[in-house]
């Protein structure tokens, strides 16, 4: 016996809309079972995981802080993925943006001006875009697989940052700790309102996502992205260049990731250090798919993923469960999103034929 996936002739439209919600519900139920197995009351555990953080202004701010980079990166990636360019290296572009943006407050720390912050943000976007330009060039000119090149570049960026903060950029007054000097006040992204720490980065994320949504929906460029993504050949007939699309989508997502990077460093951390991201660039891939590659959906998905970080910490404190619970939740969520989507497109068929058996036996 073996199991086959067979494409459905008419996938249900209703269920493909409901799919993320279905996945979410399944995640919550599976999470409840997990808490029960850990010997905790699942209802109160789920309450402090998913509900309690929403009832407090302070934790809403914290959710916004966590969501901002996820939304910003995820929105940029959605353009890439829709146009069939698989940029997996947003984490590296995030770091490249943070480094490029930090040139101003670290190297020119004696220069105080209101231009510091805008320059940092622009440098951050350029840094991220340039770093994404490497896989874009390799794909457009040499037909290299961008999944591999963009992913490999992540590790290079991480190690380069590590070297910078331990070497040339290390602060003279941090007792030899591997951090750069603290950014001056004018290099800090301002907080939004006085009730918490959420900063301007969240506004960037929302504006960027809404802007992309408008572009995808109402402009020729959006149409071009969709057409080239679905059928490159059809796009060519329409006069669209897939090479130019590689450049456009990679540079755009790189710039967004770079902006997220410099916003995180400037708004939340206040300096560079060896680790500046808990994997935002990779989590943003989950966010992009959970949001169905729709920028507005990505806003919701980013907020939800941020909730899992903040809520995970809350249950650790109130119930004393391990901090790994957060990771399990994120994994469950991605698993259910992908399996729901798969089962909407395909049906499972059990094949009992003798042929199937013998051919499988032969393969072993």
């Amino acid at each position, binding site marked *: 016996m073996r199991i086959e996936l067979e494409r459905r002739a008419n996938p249900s439209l209703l269920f493909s809309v409901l799919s993320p919600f279905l996945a979410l*519900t399944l995640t919550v139920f599976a999470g409840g079972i997990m808490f029960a197995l850990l010997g905790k009351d699942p209802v*109160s555990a789920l*309450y402090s995981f998913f509900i309690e953080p929403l009832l407090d202004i302070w934790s809403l701010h914290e959710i916004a*802080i966590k969501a901002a980079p996820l939304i910003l990166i995820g929105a940029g990636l959605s353009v890439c993925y829709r146009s069939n360019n698989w940029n997996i290296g947003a984490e590296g572009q995030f770091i490249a943006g943070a480094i490029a943006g930090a040139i101003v407050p670290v190297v020119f720390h004696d220069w105080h001006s209101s231009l510091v912050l805008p320059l940092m943000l622009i440098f951050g976007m350029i840094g991220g875009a340039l770093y994404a330009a490497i896989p874009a060039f390799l794909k457009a000119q040499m037909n290299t697989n961008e999944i591999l090149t963009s992913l490999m570049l992540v590790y290079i960026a991480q190690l380069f940052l590590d070297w910078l903060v331990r070497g040339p950029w290390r602060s003279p007054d941090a007792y*030899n*700790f591997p951090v750069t000097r603290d950014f001056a006040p004018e290099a800090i992204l301002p907080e939004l309102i006085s009730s918490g720490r959420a900063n301007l980065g969240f506004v960037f994320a929302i504006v960027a996502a809404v802007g992309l949504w408008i572009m995808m929906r109402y402009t020729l460029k959006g149409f071009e992205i969709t057409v080239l993504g679905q059928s490159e050949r059809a796009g060519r007939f329409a006069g669209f260049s897939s090479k130019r699309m590689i450049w456009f989508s990679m540079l755009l997502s790189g710039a967004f990731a770079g902006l997220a990077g410099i916003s995180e460093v400037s708004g939340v951390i206040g300096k560079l250090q060896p680790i500046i991201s808990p994997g935002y660039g990779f989590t943003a891939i989950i966010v992009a798919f959970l949001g169905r590659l729709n920028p507005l959906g990505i806003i919701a998905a980013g907020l939800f993923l941020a909730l899992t970080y903040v809520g995970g910490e809350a249950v650790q*404190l109130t119930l004393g469960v*391990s*901090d790994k619970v957060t990771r399990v939740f994120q994994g469950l969520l991605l698993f259910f999103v992908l399996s729901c989507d798969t089962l909407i497109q395909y049906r499972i068929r059990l094949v009992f034929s003798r042929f199937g058996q013998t051919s499988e036996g032969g393969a072993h």
Partner: protein
Amino acid sequence: MKKIILALTTSAAVLGFAAAASAQDKTKICFIYVGSKTDGGWTQAHDIGRQALQDHFGDKIETPFLENVPEGPDAERAIERMARSGCALVFTTSFGFMDATIKVAEKFPDVKFEHATGFKSAANVATYNARFYEGRYIQGVIAAKLSQKGLAGYIASFPIPEVVMGINSFVHGAQSVNPDFKVKVIWANTWFDPGKEADAAKALVDQGVDILTQHTDTTAPMQVAAERGIKAFGQASDMIKAGPETQLTAIVDTWGAYYIKRTQAVLDGTWKSEQMWDGLKDGILTMAPYTNMPDDVKKLAEETEAKIRSGELHPFTGPIKKQDGSDWLADGAVSDDGTLLGMNFYIAGVDDQLPK
């Protein structure tokens, strides 16, 4: 679907409220850990202290904790979460939580904070630390007695004064036995990373050291030493389980008594911001049993420990030369605490360049 979600959230809200209402009038004493509470080293020592605290006060207090909190923006959120959740006293147990602790403490003047091993304090932020260098000196003495080559390996974390002080004390202790003793240092640049710590240990063994000591948090180096058949010293917790035939002794941090004392002060309303820096004689650190060594070495170690306890011997007593050959302490002179707490130079005998 939406109805199900709605029903679920409503019932959850009701139950959650009931759960929250039951756990009031206990005083909350909270802990933030940089590593896992079962790391076998630094964080575990703090968690044992926390358990001792909980046992001592029983039902009067609660001791919630957060583990694996990275030093950075997440630390600030974690500490603020503690302050908001009604903690009366928060122990932040890693050097890198210093700035975050100070920042949150400004926002919550009524909550008391205690930061381990840092140098910044405030009206509601106390610091606490132990004179680990006293234990390092004893380790140095043992290492010099046992090492065939007169060469030990030292796995260090960050080149901050605390760690540099430990290396110097180890070398000085060793040189009191063998004036030509040398130590090789590898900077792991982490407190807690079993993989990196093990790699550093392997590299040192490959370079020919025959005794290992560490200033990182996990038992990984001890395990490497056991595999390679050399001796090693445990750090922060008794690591004898990781190397029954390897561990010579360990510096064991015993925070429990301090945690009990400070919690009592909070309950009595007498808590004040202080800078605690106690040593062997106060019991804040103890030496694990001296094992896997000949009796004469054990005797010397015990004598050295007794001398430090009684105050007869200060590990940093001259003559000591700096690595560059210049004089630091004259014959019989004793270093003051200020120099130790800001230590940024090696003494002669360290085979390493201090990262600048």
